[in-house]
């Protein structure tokens, strides 16, 4: 009896929630600029969102200064990160509480994530760069979900725009990660790291055995030697292409998210964008994890001993 009554109350609540949600969807669709044209009603002023327009290049809100709006956002997220860590670690206690606890949680999770595949010693090398990339990307992605982004306008240009939607920011991060991967490779292996790219030893051995008269073994080794040199050249190419794929993965994901929210706001304002905001928050952390995790994975591959 009791449970039946309780269950009835709960299903009524769900019903009311669903009905309210549907009503919101219908009202905002009818009021929007697309829906009002389909239904033939008057568009409601506060629901009409302009046709989404996307500019690939970042805008300059202060017309005479070479400062783009994505730069301003990057500064904002740097300030947020720096401020958070400054305030959280100003007077540290042995038993952390509040903000310090949260920051320690993040840093510890990152340290475990990195030391798991890389090991203790190499994990110490990778930790600062990978964690910084992760935090910068995720803060950039989440900051751009705040109200005011792309709506506050100065001289007709938006003052703030997600830094990851500017091709320069992912490209800069990709170049940083590329340089650090090569640096770690040289640090771990010394000059013999170059053998990854220029592997002439099999060819040299084959030529040596041909010269010394063992033509049968030398001819077989000749092909292997040429293939090894070719594989080394391909390795150079793959290291360079990696930078591009890093860049376009982050840029494309974040830009796609921005356009998706714009189009959602155009079709069904007020209801659909709030769903996509949740999706965007999730994709922000996933993309940050992928950027940092791929840097970590390639760095592990670079420092790993062969054979």
């Amino acid at each position, binding site marked *: 009896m009791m449970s039946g009554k309780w269950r009835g109350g709960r299903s009524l609540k769900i019903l009311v929630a669903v009905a309210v949600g549907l009503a919101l969807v219908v009202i905002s669709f009818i009021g929007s600029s697309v829906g009002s044209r389909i239904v033939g009603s008057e568009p409601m002023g506060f629901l009409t969102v302009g046709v989404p327009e996307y*500019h*690939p290049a970042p805008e300059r809100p202060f017309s005479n200064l070479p400062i783009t709006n994505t730069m301003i956002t990057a500064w904002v997220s740097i300030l947020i990160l720096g401020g958070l860590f400054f305030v959280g670690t100003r007077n540290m206690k042995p038993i952390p509480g509040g903000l310090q606890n949260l920051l320690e949680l993040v840093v510890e999770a990152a340290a475990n994530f990195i030391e798991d595949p890389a090991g203790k010693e190499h994990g110490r090398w990778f930790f600062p760069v990978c964690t910084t990339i992760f935090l910068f990307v995720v803060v950039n992605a989440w900051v751009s979900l705040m109200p005011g982004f792309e709506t506050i306008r100065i001289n007709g240009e938006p003052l703030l725009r997600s830094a990851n939607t500017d091709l320069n920011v992912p490209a800069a991060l990709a170049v940083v990660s590329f340089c650090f991967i090569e640096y770690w490779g040289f640090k771990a292996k010394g000059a013999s790291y170059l053998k990854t790219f220029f592997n002439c030893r099999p060819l040299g051995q084959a030529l040596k055995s041909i010269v010394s008269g063992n033509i049968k073994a030398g001819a077989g080794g000749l092909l292997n030697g040429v293939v090894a040199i070719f594989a080394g050249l391909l390795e150079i190419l793959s290291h360079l292409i990696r930078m591009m794929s890093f860049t*376009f993965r982050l840029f*494309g*994901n974040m*830009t*796609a998210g921005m356009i998706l929210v714009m189009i959602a706001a155009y079709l069904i304002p007020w209801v659909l964008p709030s769903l996509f905001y949740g999706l965007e928050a999730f994709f922000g952390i*996933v993309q940050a*994890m*992928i950027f940092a995790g791929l840097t970590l994975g390639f760095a592990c591959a670079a420092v790993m001993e062969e054979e």
Partner: protein
Amino acid sequence: MEIWSEVAKVIGAGLAMGLGALGPGIGIGILGMGAMNALGRNPEARGPIMTNMILAIAFAEAVAIYALVVAILLIFVA
């Protein structure tokens, strides 16, 4: 003649996105199938399977994102 370059841009962008989404779609389907199989065999490994599946899906999705970048470049830049 001006209109034909516009037409070519729009058709090219649509083809780039549509064909570029085919492979990643199949890939994500196979990934989901693999994850479900693993989950059926080993239900207590739910957490790691979930994390790795999302990571792998993001890699497959990146290919579609490259197609999207090409489509955006075609429409807005070319």
